[in-house]
């Protein structure tokens, strides 16, 4: 939201069209947070056992991989790209940790470091093909989705490695303090959240990320290294996915090639639900975190009500479609209302609204 304030300040327009509280509250992020609070409150009051001591604990354990991967995924999607290979990187990192520990006898921390490095390499392959070769990320990462998954299954076959030391599998499920609902995995998550929030919202690099998503040519001419930006975001995405893979392995105590199949869809769903535009250029991390939590709360509440996986998927899918649709529908609806008002008034259309410095944007067609 803060990206345009400086550009606007040098003009004669007021810095903001609305007061601060409208700018804070009337956003998609706030809508998602409100929805999260409502769903949580509803579940707390109405779903049997949702108020139990284990609910939040299991909820965080379940969504921790999504929370982690959603952070770099947000940045990737804000640049207008997408990374579909994250779940395959989770699987590959899981298998690698299993083999390194079981066959090579390495300790878990060493295996973790190697797995994260491998994840970064996987991300670098994606990033290189997207940023420097110029291929569409959808095509590249759907290819590497199959490729990395194939390598993962190939490395371990259909078997599983399950003999991880209890010290580490326990740590993956440990609570911050005895009796607390918050598992230890939230510590690295919060650290990463602070890091990514700083990177995206408070650094020149982050401003470049938004610029690239709005119009990468304009971003290039305003001094953003578009290729390097995209490349590093894919590397980050791979590395964080691999870290999530190690957590996934220890949490479930099993390294398998088919671990976390389909997780990429949940991650992307959460990011879009959190208000990040699939066309790039807009989004904020607090919305994304709320989006992930919303999916987690819905899953948890519906499982407690004994709904099957398929019904849960239908609800989350519908919510996602509605949330993506709502912005498009309301925008076009507003445009129509406005033009209607103009014709009724019989006047000429008001002079064009001021545009951002970096316009024309790729989303021009959506603007009223």
């Amino acid at each position, binding site marked *: 939201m803060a990206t345009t304030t400086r550009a606007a300040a040098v003009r004669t327009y007021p810095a903001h069209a*609305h007061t601060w509280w409208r700018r804070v509250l*009337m956003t998609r992020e706030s809508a998602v947070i409100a*929805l999260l609070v409502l769903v949580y409150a509803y579940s707390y009051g*109405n779903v049997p056992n949702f108020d139990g001591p284990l609910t939040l604990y299991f909820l965080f354990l379940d969504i921790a991989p999504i929370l982690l991967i959603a952070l770099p995924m947000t940045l990737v999607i804000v640049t207008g790209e997408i990374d579909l290979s994250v779940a395959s990187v989770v699987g590959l990192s899981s298998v690698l940790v299993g083999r390194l520990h079981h066959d090579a006898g390495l300790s878990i921390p060493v295996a973790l470091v190697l797995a994260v490095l491998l994840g970064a390499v996987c991300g670098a392959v994606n990033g290189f093909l997207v940023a420097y070769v110029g291929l569409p990320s959808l095509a590249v990462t759907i290819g590497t989705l199959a490729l990395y998954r194939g390598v993962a299954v190939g490395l371990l076959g259909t078997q599983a490695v399950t003999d991880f030391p209890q010290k580490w599998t326990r740590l993956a499920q440990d609570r911050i303090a005895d009796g607390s609902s918050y598992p230890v995995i939230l510590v690295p998550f919060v650290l990463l959240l602070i890091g990514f929030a700083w990177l995206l919202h408070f650094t020149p690099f982050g401003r470049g990320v938004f610029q690239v998503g709005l119009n990468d040519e304009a971003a290039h001419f305003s001094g953003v290294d578009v290729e390097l930006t995209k490349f590093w975001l894919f590397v980050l995405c791979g590395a964080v996915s691999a870290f999530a893979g190690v957590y996934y392995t220890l949490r479930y105590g*099993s390294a398998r090639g088919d671990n976390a199949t389909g997780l990429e869809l949940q991650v992307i769903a959460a990011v879009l639900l959190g208000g990040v535009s699939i066309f790039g250029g807009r989004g904020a991390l607090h919305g994304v975190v709320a989006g992930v939590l919303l999916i987690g709360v819905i899953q948890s509440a519906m499982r407690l009500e004994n709904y*099957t996986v398929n019904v849960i998927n239908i609800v989350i899918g519908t919510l996602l479609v509605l949330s993506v649709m709502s*912005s498009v529908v309301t*925008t076009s609806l507003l445009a129509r209302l406005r033009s209607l008002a103009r014709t009724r008034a019989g006047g000429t259309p008001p002079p064009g609204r001021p545009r951002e410095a970096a316009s024309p944007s790729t989303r021009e067609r959506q603007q009223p």
Partner: protein
Amino acid sequence: MKFRTRRATALVSVALAAGLALSACNSKNDSASDGGNSSGGGGGKNTYVFLPKNLGNPYFDTSDKAGQKAVESFGGKYQEVGPDKGTPDAQVPFINTAAQQGVGALIISADDPKAICDAVGQARDAGVKVVTFDSDTSPDCRDLFINQATADGIAKVEVDMIAEQIGDSGEIAILSAAANATNQNAWIDMMKKDLADNHPNIKLDDVVYGDDDDQTSFDKTAALLSSYPNLKGIISPTTVGIAAAARYLSTSDAKGKVALTGLGTPNQMRDYVKDGTVKEFALWNPADLGTLAAYAAKALVDGDITGKEGDSFDAGDLGSFTVGADATVLLGDPFKYNADNIDQFNF
């Protein structure tokens, strides 16, 4: 983004809130309509949750249905939950949910012997009794394991069936799965011993390996029949092997002359039993397995047994059972499927 979103976002918020209200109403209606068993029984010590490896698997449908009948017969509340793919990471959230709900017992077919142990431990900490059936976890994880069959029992029933079908004398062969399959080799060794000790007139010509591949098993059956013209019977202790062998025999001259038996599933073997290629084959009865698991869970919940060796409990029509070593309850001898009973089964 700044310029177009003002009122749009307001509308979006309204739309989302409306969506929420709708979904909230929906779930309210749902919980009201089936609230009878979910809010009253979503937890509670009288709830018995069946968690198969995956849903939509006819084998588990059979045992879970029998389990449901048993649970309802003793007045408990039955639930079946499960993932749509048989992996341990997909099974864990359901174990977690059972722990949250504080159900009486969780009856699991484990997707992995070790991977779900932590989750099972958390459920037991929450007071849930955990019974495994069909596929066990490590013995220290769960309260009780319902074992469908022992290696001894499987080997013996197969030898008995072939001896009966060929009149206890003549040449036979074994069509196995992979040459290094541990359980297959254990059964074959026991069969060899049983044949030598109790059936001196039966000669085992050969053991061939179809690798649990349909075509390979089919070809090996053809090869067996041409190499051993006096062959009177084939034992195939693998479901893939017996189906492939039956397919070969049913179209060859040897149909009805060479007996075939082993371990198979009713749906695969139904046609061959009906056309006379196969007289009788064996497998455990998954329905009885589900029933026994339900009664065992009840005995644990009621405190009648603790899973200690020597504990015994009543399992309705199935009779009385005693807990063996490693907190294991054995269902009994494998179940024989033939033309008289095969239509009662669908898995």
